């Protein structure tokens, strides 16, 4: 081992990204490619009665205009990961505003866009329902989603609440939000006879291939579909499931008999690829006067649609984070005339915001420090898993200076700003999905890893290269990692914090297998200086193979494989189990109460993600997560017009996300101890979605500490503090 795993190795793909050498999905130059443009509905509910494409068809360069009248008939994929549950352009029904009603194909992008403005559509319109507030009395308990029930009962929460010495009962609300990756969704579909290649912005190439195969069951076999997605300009969940633009582009390319490229506009990304649903959450906590939780009743209501009823923002932390004997979780929903929601950036943040704010309220009710309250309700992990959350509280509190906090609200002032300190626990579930890897050692002594995982901006190329280099005993720059192609061994979707826990096991196994295979060849080869040495006595470092204890007796990967006469190719697998990562975040805010202005001035966070594979990329995840947490708390919200159910702010100039000036530098600390429950992944857990989950509550709690005003409705814009 050369000890690369754990080090803050720089991005191996950094140079390619900053020089433009990295080819993102829409960068692929495909000969003779045609360009697509979508025409979107301007009503939310009803039916197309008339669709006139004649002007568009007569427009220069237009090859075809596809509508429900001439689109290829497709099969609706049965379930997740095709959340939409209907395919546009298959019939006249309108399910939401901003639904595709026509697909223009032209020789240039500009021609396609211009022709799209010339399609005339008439509708029979029914009045839509757009807001949760307008349909709360229609809330219902949706059926199980992905094998999980939407109601969970532990103990007798109602009775325990009745008996509780202290109660907190409040409502917490959050609006619709959108992922907003900088790279828009894009598909380029290339048919070659009955085989299909898709250059795709996808967080999961394998699942995308599966969904496309389901939709095109009449036309193509799954094995004849290739999905390529080597780089992603951000995904945040928006590119996890497969969406209709991918299916429509593949269909358009088949009908047009030529490759077709589609890039969604920013506005289209507000209705085409999911969002975080609007939520209302009633939370009732019961506790002893000493602050021990005796009951939690968590009843949430989410926006659903009339075509599906999936709950994506589950109340996992209510169920699993704290020691509470009586818990009742109900995840309700109401059907609205809106696009389908989906997973978005740490989906559990939605529920966790309520829980961690309510705990802060409880800490004031019982007169306990918010950290101490959480320590008293700590739930140790069940074996074999580890959980160093108490260590996170200690590390974070110490680095922040929490012990100096005067708990009284509204007493600390600097200039015309009130200062507030708040904290929250951070946690998220991670998934582990069966994955496979292939590793080749060639005659130059270089290693190439192939795995159908993805680089979604988080550092997959870098960390897997470290794992391979360490496993082989090879310098980092002798290892090339190739990702994002269904031609490679199948691997997990890069969503649900699943990449590392799923893929590191197969990759490190492949590295170990490759090393063993090369050593076996060497010791069996009379031409090798290592001939006859017991394999267990061979050590690999820097691409060299030594005899333990006698460094002069050596061979190298290059020489062994060269003598062998052909590359050594091995595979690896290494199934893992899902789990949770943990942390604690401490936030300082400055508030000008008279103007309602809030800024976050300091963030310190400490985490237990198991073993840290790369401190630099892990810290990067923290910066990203905390920044999104600030956005969630202070500004992000998608506005839907109550009368038309149309998104009013589908642009980055009106849907606000934090800029640098909103975001202080973030200090992060890691316990960095391997989790035995994630042994295949070298003790590393899934971590990506954990940072930020507690930030909205920590900010709310800090605002309360600064001002004595308790905010329970994100985002905390100026009007709410006046």
């Amino acid at each position, binding site marked *: 081992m050369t000890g690369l795993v754990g080090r803050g190795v720089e991005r191996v793909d950094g140079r390619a990204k900053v020089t433009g050498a990295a080819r993102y999905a829409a960068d692929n130059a495909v000969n003779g490619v045609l360009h697509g443009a979508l025409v*979107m509905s*301007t009503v939310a509910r009803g039916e197309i009665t008339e669709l006139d494409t004649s002007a568009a068809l007569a427009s220069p360069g237009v090859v075809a205009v596809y509508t429900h009248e001439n689109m290829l008939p497709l099969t609706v994929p049965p379930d997740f990961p095709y959340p939409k549950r209907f395919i546009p352009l298959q019939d006249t029904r309108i399910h939401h*505003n*901003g639904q595709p009603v026509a697909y223009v194909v032209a020789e240039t992008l*500009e021609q396609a*866009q*211009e022709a799209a*403005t010339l399609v005339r559509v008439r509708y029979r319109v029914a009045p839509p329902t757009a807001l949760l507030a307008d349909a709360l009395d229609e809330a219902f308990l949706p059926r199980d989603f992905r094998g999980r029930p939407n109601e969970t009962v532990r103990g007798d929460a109602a009775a325990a609440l009745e008996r509780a010495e202290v109660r907190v009962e409040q409502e917490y609300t959050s609006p619709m939000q959108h992922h907003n990756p900088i790279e828009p969704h894009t598909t380029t579909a290339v048919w070659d006879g009955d085989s299909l290649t898709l250059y795709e912005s996808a967080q999961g190439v394998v699942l995308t291939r599966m969904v496309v195969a389901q939709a095109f069951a009449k036309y193509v076999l799954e094995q004849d579909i290739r999905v390529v997605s080597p780089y992603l300009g951000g995904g945040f969940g928006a590119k996890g499931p497969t969406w209709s633009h991918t299916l429509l582009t593949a269909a358009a390319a088949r009908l047009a008999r030529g490759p077709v490229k589609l890039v969604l506009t920013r*506005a289209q990304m507000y209705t085409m690829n999911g969002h975080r649903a609007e939520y209302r959450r009633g939370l009732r906590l019961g506790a002893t006067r000493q602050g021990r939780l005796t009951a939690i009743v968590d009843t949430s209501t989410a926006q659903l649609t009339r075509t599906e009823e999936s709950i994506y923002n589950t109340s996992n932390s209510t169920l699993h984070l704290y020691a509470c004997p009586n818990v009742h979780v109900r995840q309700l929903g109401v059907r609205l005339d809106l696009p389908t929601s989906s997973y978005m950036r740490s989906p559990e943040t939605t529920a966790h915001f309520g829980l961690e704010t309510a705990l802060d309220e409880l800490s004031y009710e019982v007169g306990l420090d918010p950290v101490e309250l959480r320590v008293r309700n700590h739930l140790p992990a069940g074996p074999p898993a580890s959980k160093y959350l108490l260590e996170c509280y200690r590390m974070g509190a110490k680095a922040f200076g929490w012990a100096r906090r005067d708990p009284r609200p509204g007493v600390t002032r600097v200039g015309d700003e009130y200062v507030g300190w708040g904290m929250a626990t951070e946690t998220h579930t991670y998934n582990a999905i069966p994955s496979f890897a292939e590793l080749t050692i060639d005659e130059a002594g270089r290693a190439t890893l192939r795995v159908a995982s993805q680089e979604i901006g988080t550092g997959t190329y870098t960390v897997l290269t470290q794992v391979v280099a360490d496993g082989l005993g090879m310098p980092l720059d002798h290892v090339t990692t190739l990702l994002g192609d269904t031609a490679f061994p199948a691997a997990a979707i890069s969503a649900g914090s699943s990449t590392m826990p799923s893929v590191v096991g197969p990759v490190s196994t492949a590295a170990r297998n490759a090393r063993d295979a090369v050593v076996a060849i060497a010791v069996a080869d009379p031409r090798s200086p290592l001939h006859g040495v017991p394999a267990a006595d061979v050590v690999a470092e820097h691409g060299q193979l030594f005899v333990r204890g006698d460094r002069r007796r050596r061979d190298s990967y290059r020489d062994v494989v060269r003598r062998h006469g052909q590359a050594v190719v091995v595979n690896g697998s290494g199934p893992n189990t899902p789990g949770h990562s943990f942390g604690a975040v401490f936030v300082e805010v400055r508030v000008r109460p*008279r*103007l*309602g*202005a809030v*800024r976050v001035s300091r963030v310190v966070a400490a985490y237990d993600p198991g073993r840290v594979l790369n401190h630099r990329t892990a810290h990067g995840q923290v910066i990203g997560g905390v920044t999104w947490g600030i956005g969630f708390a*202070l*500004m992000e919200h998608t*506005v839907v*017009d*109550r*009368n*038309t159910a*149309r998104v*009013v*702010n*589908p*642009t980055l*100039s*009106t849907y*606000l996300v*934090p*800029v*640098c*000036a*909103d975001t202080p530098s973030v200090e992060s600390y890691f316990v960095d101890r391997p989790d035995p429950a994630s042994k295949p992944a070298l003790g590393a857990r899934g971590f990506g979605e954990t940072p930020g989950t507690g930030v909205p509550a920590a900010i709310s709690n800090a605002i309360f500490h600064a001002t004595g005003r308790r905010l329970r409705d994100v985002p905390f*814009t*100026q*009007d709410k503090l*006046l």
Partner: protein
Amino acid sequence: MRAFGYTVAESPADAVRIAAGTPNSAFVAGGTDLLNLMRDGAQSHDHLVDLNHLDLARIDMDATTLRIGALARMRQVAEHPEVRREFPVLSQALLASASPQVRVMAAIGGNLLQRTRCGYFRDAGSACNKRVPGSGCPAISGHNRGHAILGGSEHCIATHPSDLAVALTALDATVHLLGPDGGRAVPVADFHLLPGSTPQRETVLRQGELITRVDVPRTRAATRSRYLKLRDRASFEFAVVSVAAALRLDGRTVGDVRLAFGGVGTRPWRDTGVEAALRGRELTEAAVSAAGRVLVRDAVPRDGNGFKVELVQRALVSVLGELGGVR
């Protein structure tokens, strides 16, 4: 976006002649707003006349007046040493606008002509009286948190988004225009129109008329001036409420005060009654609060923007407090 023609103008007169003679044409300089509007289908032109080669980018100051060429870029004006010294409010308003990248591109004339950020206006799939006269105003019964409480009509309640225009309004600037029939000068306070029943008409500009220059008179008050901008994020965002203030104190008495407000009106908002309520009085929080009440006496709050009635008054107290040392 639709195909359009394009000509590079060689002189101001050339630009005016082409634009006046070409139906549905528009001038383009930085293009930071226009091109987005055209891409989004919120605005459509058959022809663009490019002004970037015209000699209209100078900034000069003499004993009485600052003269800003219409093609001076936002950054140039914001960083100009004399602007910073003599007109802090102008520099601050510009630096609080947009992003560094936009400020390098965007010209002063275009800044005054930027269109409202109303989401209904910018969405070609929505009704909007400003974009399609007679189609209706969804903001009045819809989402109007960012909309005006002053100067609205039953046809339109959209705010004007320019910070610069607010500062220039407070400073009594004059906009110089060149048209097919020659030049004229318009006080900036009269340059933008109230929506009334014709919200599609936003300024006094006639077809082909070009902004060539903005003149700002030097005053003692201007040297003691400030721009306060309240917004939903710290940078690259339009005002929820803003105040441009210039103040001359004679002892504790208000000798001269100029005030204009952004984010609350359908045009950069100046109300001389507010200034009259302060002039000649001692600058106290009570006096400023009374002046603030004058500002909002005719305010028409809607479902989402009622908070602005209170916020703009508090912003006024805050900015005059800072300028006048009142706490």
